[in-house]
């Protein structure tokens, strides 16, 4: 019951996301690397990261600094909204390939 109500609200609210104007940044995953490894975004603004996983394997975009966690299947894209952030650098990594998949968002 509770989840039913929630899913209804979810549908209602998800419509709002689409209408909000946010800057988009693309980050590619290739050979278990984030390209570019460094993305500069404006501080104090919500932005949209489009994570394009070009590897055949899934990856989990994870960041303790940004409080984000999202699985992106192989050969597909995932959207992660971040911010508004205060100035500073925020690390993220690919949980499934942590040794190589490292990146940072710089808000300035």
């Amino acid at each position, binding site marked *: 019951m*509770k*989840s039913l109500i*929630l*899913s209804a609200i*979810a*549908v209602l*609210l*998800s*419509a*709002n*996301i*689409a209408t*909000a104007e946010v800057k988009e940044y693309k980050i590619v995953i290739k050979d278990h690397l984030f390209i570019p490894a460094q993305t500069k975004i404006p501080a104090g603004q*919500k932005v949209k990261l489009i994570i394009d996983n070009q*590897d*055949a*394997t*899934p*990856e*989990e975009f994870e960041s*303790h*600094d940004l*409080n*984000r*966690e*999202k*699985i*992106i*299947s*192989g050969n*597909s894209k*995932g*959207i*992660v*909204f971040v911010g*508004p952030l205060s100035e500073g650098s925020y690390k993220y990594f690919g*949980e*499934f390939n*942590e*040794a190589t998949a490292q990146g940072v968002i710089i808000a300035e």
Partner: protein
Amino acid sequence: MLATSIIIFREILEIAIILSVVMVAAKELEHRNRWVAIGLGAGILGSCLVAFFAQSISNAAEGMGQEFFNAMVLLAAAFVIGMTALWMSKHAKELTAHLRHVSNEVIQGNMPLYSIAIVIALAVLREGAEIVLFTHGMIASGKSISSILAGSAMGFTAGIIVGASMYFGLLKISTKHVFTVTTWLLIFLCAGMAATAAQYLASAGWFESLSYQLWNTSAIISDSSMVGKVLHALFGYTARPLAIQVAFYVVTLITLVVAMKIINYKPTSKTTGAAA
């Protein structure tokens, strides 16, 4: 292999902790193990389904499907855990009497049995889907099956050791207090899940005005540390909580505590021979 085992361990850890608390809480109920097994089975099956439909889930709701899905699973689990905690607080006396073998009465109500199965299934579902996706990816990328298997086995074993030591540790608590402790653990589990759900909802763009970080204790206990992970699973600890997470946490805690007080207001109505 080591990398694989660490990832598997991380995913298993939360399941193991939830499982151990729930199993101790339900220890005096008949057929507990059957319902635990049903929960595990349903969770594993569900994990495979979720992993299979991962892309469709992800693409739903303007690309925020995964966030909503996780939030809903967590809220559903939190709801059932909360109800179980309330049920336990109401029946603590009967449960304790049972534990002391003072009473042979069957503890009334099947509710906790269904709930433990549901809670376990939901806990497995969320983390299990990640394990399925991860291992499937490893196989797809041509890593040797034996190394994947060995790594997974190591991770599983480590997770089970943590869960088992928690389970037996909790069982050592004196008969008098064990259900009080587990009820409180369930209450904190519930609040922690609600807070994590709030994080996913915030990720999906909800509560924008409350999506700022309230504090940062990552210098003391980081989210990636072992202690941080255990505290996260048990109490919903996070080093950089958003305002909305703290709000969800506090509101859930207060709601449960108040509900518990209301439920148990009538001063000792029906004690079943637990004279001590």
